[in-house]
């Protein structure tokens, strides 16, 4: 079943063509890695899928809803209800505890539920650190809080833009293991990464260059090759 379908997506900033005629479909439960050199348009694409930007041209259909006709408020609602976001920088509210940071997402979605938020932190192995402020957590721990927050409203799609980009290897591995588990549980994930090893974990790897898809491999072996070459 397709949950996401991009058709002829282009994004133009003045004279910069950040994306050109991108076509892509993502199935439920897939893990897609988005790779490519710096400036190739990965973040731009993630922003369009994540309802944080509108494409200059083309159509995005998520779960049967076409984005181009929607206003800002409706886009916010889709992001809130269907998408979980994880960023390269961890982006936690600095004066709220780990637990409260997870609850903020519940608050804007529906209702804060402390037990459920606690369970989400347990899921990422941070139950003991629930009452700590972000400044008291390591980078890896902060990113795990972000993942817990991204999961809390049962999103249909998880978007992660270089989630391990700011982490050392040990922490990156913990985070990646989490994503693997999520994938096994059936979550749909699109992840931007520069790391071929991370790319290998995904089922599919998409290479962007100058705003175009230059390589698209579906098979596991091909993935490794494509990503390593990129």
């Amino acid at each position, binding site marked *: 079943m397709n949950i996401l379908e991009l058709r002829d997506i282009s994004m133009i900033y003045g004279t910069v063509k950040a994306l050109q005629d991108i076509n892509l479909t993502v199935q439920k439960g897939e893990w897609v890695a988005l790779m490519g050199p710096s400036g190739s348009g990965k973040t731009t694409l993630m*922003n369009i899928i994540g309802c*944080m930007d509108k494409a200059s041209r083309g159509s995005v259909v998520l779960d049967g809803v076409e984005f181009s006709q929607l206003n800002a408020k409706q886009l*916010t609602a889709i992001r809130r209800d269907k998408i979980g976001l994880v960023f390269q920088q961890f*982006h936690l509210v600095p*004066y709220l505890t780990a637990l409260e940071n997870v609850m*903020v997402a519940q608050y*804007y979605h529906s209702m804060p539920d402390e037990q459920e938020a606690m369970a989400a932190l347990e899921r990422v192995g941070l139950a003991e650190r629930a009452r700590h402020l972000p400044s008291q957590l390591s980078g890896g721990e902060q990113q795990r809080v972000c993942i817990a927050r991204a999961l809390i409203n049962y999103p249909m799609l998880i978007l992660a833009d270089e989630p391990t980009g700011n982490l050392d290897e040990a922490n990156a591995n913990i985070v990646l293991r989490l994503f693997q588990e999520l994938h096994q549980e059936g979550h749909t994930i699109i992840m931007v990464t520069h790391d071929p090893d991370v790319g290998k974990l995904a089922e599919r790897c998409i290479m962007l260059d100058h705003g175009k898809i230059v390589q698209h491999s579906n098979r596991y072996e091909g993935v490794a090759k494509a990503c390593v070459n990129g």
Partner: protein
Amino acid sequence: MFWQILKGSLVRQRQKMFMVAITIALGVSLTTAMLNVMLDVGDKVNRELKAYGANITVTPRSASILHDFYGVEAGGAGQYLQESELGKLKTIFWANNIVDFSPILETRAIIGQTASEITLVGTWFNHRLDLPTGETVETGIKQLKSWWSVEGNWVQESSQGAMLGSMAASRLGLQIGDEIDLVIPGSDRTAKVKIEGVFNSGGPEDEEIFVPLGLAQKLTNLPGKVGKIEVSAITTPENELARKAAHDPKSLSLKEWETWYCTAYVGAIAYQIEEAITGAHAKPVRQVAESEGAILQKTQLLMLLITVLSLIGSTLGISNLLTASVMERNREVGLLKALGADDTEVLVLTLSQILFTGIAGGFAGYFLGLGFAQIIGQTVFSAAVAAKPMVIPIVMVLVVLVTLTGSLPAIRMLVSLRPAEVLHGR
């Protein structure tokens, strides 16, 4: 959750918010001080200026014609006002602006002991007067001539007492406590009075003797009659319309006339006095009346100007601080938006934070302002300033207005802030 975020962001930005609160407190304190001074000292200044005496004199019409045409003081029969009509002064349209008034009945008298002639003035000293409206006012020369310096006491209304001018006292060698006989020349009417007080007015009254009105009426055999009335009224400064009316009332159009009648010009008040009291001619003592109003109005204008400027200053200050504060928080706000907060929710959150700060600052500023008001009152007007309750709602409205206006640029930034731009560190 809302409160946690609100509290957290307030605590985190406490320095900026503290500055915002201080800016508001300063603006509000000045506003509070000025408003209180304006409203309270306004009255007090007026009373102080009024100390220079009556600004309207009311005389019988026929007497005034004689005076105006031939320059003679009327002494003839029949030219008197009725004492019983004095209360009507407090029934005219501008009754509340009539602060004090006092009747005068003059005659020549001879002091038996020294065989010297003196002007005898019958008047109210501190008279309780029941008004047709059912109210009671206290009025008389004790209020009207508050600048007199008096040795001894003011005369009690019911007594057989008298107050002697200081010049007469020293010329005749009379002192407080002396009893004297007053004789009306060419009649057999006499009275024995005791000198209760000696006053110094700095004017021609210092050669005169003041007795209760009733006694003067008995001596002159003019029961219930009054020679003239001195009135002190708070007035609006003259303008073109007032001058036009003074020159020729008939030249006013109906609309102009209505405006004139319903403004507290000294001329309009005089006109209304004439309407109220039979056979009366009310004449403004113009210079005094005009300067009284003008000084007060200029003072109030100045205070209003300071208030407005200080509020504008506060608004600008707040607007800078809040813009900086929103810029500092843009990642956080972008994050909240990314997590699904819409513009309204972000606005409510930020405005709550700003209003909370504004109210705290306003509260502190109000009390600070009461203090300022006292300082201004004491140093500038030498009067204590009472806190006027009506200042509180005005200040509250101003706090909200100033904080909201000051937060407009910040609000615009918040609304236009796009999470994609701040979250990827571009």
